[in-house]
């Protein structure tokens, strides 16, 4: 498929919605992406045609549901280039994926004084689980500093790695766009006998993912940011690790046997999937993967790079010093997330005026309060790009920003 945004936009029903007669400009894909019709169709026909509880059922319907779910696991697996689909664990969101690692691997491997090294730009989902372990087990959470332009400052890496058992970093920042050198960090972690977890919530949706290239041990991401439904997340982990870890949630599916005295756990991936899984959501995520693969992740990346360059250029041309865009300027180390501060207009007010022009952006701390503190702001206005956005969306953003300035100027 050759990449044509105006054609592709039509795949997403919400994007043709109009807001007060004006077209809707959706620039909040870092929060959640819109869904193509094909994904909605697959979810709908799952419920209309094969809905049944998975596993254990000996009737055709239950077999079809099980097959659909396990096929989706294969799809997700090959999407990130894992060759073992049992390494794909379905959770409800990336947050649960990271908590799973913190509780199952963390509680059985981390002790008082052990260090988890995170970066200063992490999302709360990759901070709070470690704070919780700090409270319950006395581990230390250590922070990789950032350079002025929002890159990881690794000058002191050796010292930072002292006593570290886990390096847990974003594959791409949801605030600054920064794409850190994950491979290098994973290798460095392994050199000191530590593991590496990547919060790939903003990575997997936006670029080709190759586990072998990343070199990490755990990878967490979330369905709703990659054209899939809500209610579904993924944790990938190396099978040896997953096999050695104790169960997380307890219940049906995750057991081999239960007696009045105790239980034995099932094999992976089911050991970590207690209860009725989000079946329709898993099947929907499979359809999202199909969709993204039909577009081609290389194309998605190229398109976003070009569009991000255009956006950086346009906004700086039109607003100069009135608009601060946080994060790196170089599109080879950043994704299409633009966190902005506009004059002294409060981000809430900016996003409100933008909304009145049909432009949807987020205002707030983006679940990265330690980073906000570092940037010395309470909040930013964030516009984020995805495969269905184009230059006209960026222009609409710029026009609406200009109108905002006029609105609040005395």
């Amino acid at each position, binding site marked *: 498929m050759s990449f044509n945004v105006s054609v592709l936009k039509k795949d997403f029903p919400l994007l043709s919605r109009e807001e007060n007669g004006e077209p809707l400009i959706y620039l909040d894909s870092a929060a959640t992406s819109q869904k193509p019709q094909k994904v909605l169709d697959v979810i709908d026909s799952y419920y209309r045609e094969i809905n049944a509880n998975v596993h254990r059922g000996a009737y055709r319907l239950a077999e079809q549901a099980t097959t659909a779910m396990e096929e989706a696991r294969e799809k997700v697996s090959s999407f990130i280039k894992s060759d073992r689909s049992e390494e794909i664990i379905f959770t409800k969101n990336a947050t649960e994926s990271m908590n799973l690692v913190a509780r199952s691997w963390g509680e059985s491997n981390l002790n008082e004084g052990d260090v988890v090294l995170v970066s200063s730009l992490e999302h709360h989902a990759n901070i709070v689980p470690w704070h919780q372990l700090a409270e319950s087990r006395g581990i230390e959470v250590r922070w990789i500093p950032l350079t002025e332009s929002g890159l990881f400052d690794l000058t002191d890496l050796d010292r930072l790695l002292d006593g570290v058992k886990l390096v847990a970093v974003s594959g791409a920042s949801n605030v600054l766009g920064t794409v850190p050198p994950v491979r290098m960090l994973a290798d460095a972690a392994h050199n000191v006998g530590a593991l590496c977890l990547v919060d790939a919530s903003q990575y997997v949706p936006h670029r080709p993912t190759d586990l072998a290239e990343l070199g990490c041990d755990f990878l967490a991401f979330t369905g709703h940011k990659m054209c899939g439904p809500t209610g579904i997340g993924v944790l990938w982990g190396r099978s040896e690790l997953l096999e050695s870890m104790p169960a997380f949630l307890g219940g049906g599916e995750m057991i081999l046997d239960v007696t009045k005295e105790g239980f034995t756990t099932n094999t992976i991936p089911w050991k970590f999937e207690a209860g009725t899984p989000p079946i329709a959501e898993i099947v929907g995520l499979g359809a999202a993967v199909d969709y993204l693969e039909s577009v081609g992740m290389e194309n998605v990346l190229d398109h976003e790079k070009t569009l991000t360059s255009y956006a950086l250029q346009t906004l700086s041309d039109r607003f100069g010093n009135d608009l601060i865009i946080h994060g790196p300027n170089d599109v080879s180390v950043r994704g299409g997330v633009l966190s902005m501060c506009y004059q002294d207009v*409060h981000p*809430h007010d900016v996003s409100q*005026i933008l909304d*009145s022009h049909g432009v949807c952006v987020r205002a*707030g701390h983006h679940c990265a309060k330690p980073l*906000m503190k570092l940037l010395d702001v*309470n909040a930013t206005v964030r516009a984020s790009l995805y495969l269905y956005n184009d230059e006209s969306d960026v222009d609409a953003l710029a026009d609406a920003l200009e109108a905002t300035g006029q*609105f609040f100027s005395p």
Partner: protein
Amino acid sequence: MSGLEDLYREIILDHYRNPRNQGELETPPAVMAEGFNPLCGDEVTVHIHVEDGVIVDMKFGGHGCSISLASASMMTTVTTGKSLSEAKDIIYSFKQMMSIHEGRLEEGSEETDSPMAGLGDLQALQGVVKFPVRIKCATLGWNTLEQCFEELASQ
């Protein structure tokens, strides 16, 4: 610009651009409280000085969006000089106004016994209810004023 002029009434923009009673008071004799909106990280401080059950002076500070600053500014102008119980009545009426469902707003706005009656300039903030996330902005200062009252009561 759907409803935007309902939110950003001229008088609100005026208070935003020219906030009244910005600053701090010495404590004691004044009491102070800090309010916090976890949704956007906005913070507001309110200082009040009460003598013989009357608010003789009030200042607000902190940083926030136009709605939270304008609302806090208007609050100081409306409640300064009032007795504590009068101020509480105003807070009550204001919060009532903020909790009216958008639909009811349109119908009910004529009635004289509506909670908005007697709020004067504050009525300009009634458009906020059409923008549910902004209600927390509009009430931030007011909640902080209530905290001041609690602080006072606990002394």
